[in-house]
């Protein structure tokens, strides 16, 4: 099957200057398991566009690096 990549405005925004490389707090609590670490930078990012905008990632981030926006389709 031919592949294409589609740009998506993702709800979970990570401020990389605040994200701690050794911390997995957001990744561990996400119910949908959509957050992962970028293996090159050690920073978290939203890999899968499957967000319930429920906010555990934002609330449990120890440095306030995460902001969750309402998904564009609902905004």
């Amino acid at each position, binding site marked *: *099957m031919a*592949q294409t990549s589609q740009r998506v405005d993702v709800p979970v925004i990570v401020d990389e200057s605040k994200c701690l490389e050794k911390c997995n707090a957001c990744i*561990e*609590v*996400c*119910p*949908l*398991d959509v957050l992962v670490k970028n293996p090159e930078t050690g920073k978290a990012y939203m*890999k*899968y566009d*499957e*967000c*319930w*905008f*429920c*906010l*555990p990632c934002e*609330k*449990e981030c120890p440095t306030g690096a995460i902001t*969750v*926006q*309402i*998904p564009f*389709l*609902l*905004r």
Partner: protein
Amino acid sequence: MQILATDFGFKIQRMQTDVLVVGGGTAGTMAGIKAKQANPDSDVLILEKANIRRSGAIAMGMDGVNTAVIPGNSTPEQYVREITIANDGIVNQKAVYETGRLGFEVIQELESWGVKFQKDPDGNYDLKQVHRVGKYVLPMPEGKDLKKILTRQVKRHGVNVTNRVMATRVIVQNGRATGVVGFDVRSGDFVVIQAKAVILCTGACGRLGLPASGYLYGTYENPTNAGDGYAMAYHAGAELTNIECFQINPLIKDYNGPACAYVASPFGAYTANAEGHRFINCDYWSGQMMLEIYKELNSGNGPVHLKMYHLDDDTIAEIESILWANERPSRGRFHEGRGENYRTHGVEMNISEIGLCSGHSASGVWVNERAETTVPGLYAAGDMASVPHNYMIGAFVYGRVAGENAVDYLQSLDHLEPDADFLAAEQARIYHPLTQPNGIPHTQVEYKLRRLVNDYLQPPKSPHKMEIGLEKFVAYTDTLTEMGARDPHELMRCAEVHFIRDCAEMAARASLYRKETRWGLYHYRLDYPEKNDAEWFCHVNLKKAETGEMELFKRPVEPYIIDVDLKEEVYDVAVR
């Protein structure tokens, strides 16, 4: 085609436990704790697809309890009467009674663990009336940490927890549930768990209909709750019931949370039409109330809204502090993003996507007052078990009932070695998408399936449309084999689409079978617009027959234990 986990470099993990709880949400955490309390020597394992610290319907807490039967305020008998009327008589009263009888003990135990419920200045529970007659709504303005508190208790009680493993099938041998199979959604490992009793607590089927926004995960229910338990119980041979009694909720338009009259109406807010007039006299969520909302939305008086702008500033600020901090904490930023303010405008409301959820309506895996399904050793609790209008307290109560009874049941039982052919077949089914990473992505397969659900099943229900829908859902079994996945995470979503398809077929067949209208909008049939007690005062149950076909049949309503005159006491909430 033989496909094994090891083909992809995954391991096979084997575990054994006495009690296996599938799903660590409201019901599941309580089931685990209660099983361990009942027998501290038993091994109890909670299996969770996410992480129990923030999973399930109350991942971000809860702003109030809807079914609190507290001595001095109401009685279990009153509660049973209220739910019997709200659910048009189709209830197993003995099961509903347990929620009323044990709910207060649950609230007291939660309090002893640090959960806070609202009290008046005299220290009494500050109950509010939202139901038609009684006061059962107890606010929890500080309910945001519910899941953290439950997680702490799970650990303190010595309950084992395995996070990020998704169950896909219940193992049934010698006519009883003997474990589950599934896979680790991060490592991909195939997981086989032998158990003496299995308690399914996997929540609603919240990803059945597609929200009007088109965002697959913008559902009312936590989208991890994809009907896993409904489908697993079905394939295990258990009966399901009232599936045609859909869950449909009045929500903020475009947002996945309620406006929410349960919280705001005790402060003086109410649901109004575009002209600001009341059109319902009770905000309790029932099919009858949803039908009035549907009618108003489709009249010249729509849209409808939650009206608060007549209240004073302090009152509105208090409502905001509750609604924006618990259960759906993104609600505030949703409004802010749109420049909306409760002080000047009503909160525009719409009808949610359809789902299956006994917590709000009545559809679920059939259970009796002991939380037993029709398969020995298989229990169910929470939003997926058939006790109507059970909400959070009912989930806690039935988690407790299931946990205690499961421990009692398994005492003389041994583990059984799972059948090798069964394990091979399940590996072939769940890992298939990895054999074709360029197959159709699960997102597209799911989107189309759920759009078909909207097109053909969204009430009001038309028989011809539902027949077309059913044909498409059955044919979709082949479409599922075209799905491709590139990693264990995508495999999880693919497995969920299988569950959604199973639920869609059940929803179509059950809706076609009941040839009358009942539960207001939930089962409003255009070809049979009236209630017909003579033929349909019964449950519609379904199960997987020996042939593998879906079999539907009538199941009589259990004799009432509390008299209710359904001819006299009709649930009518319309303002005329």
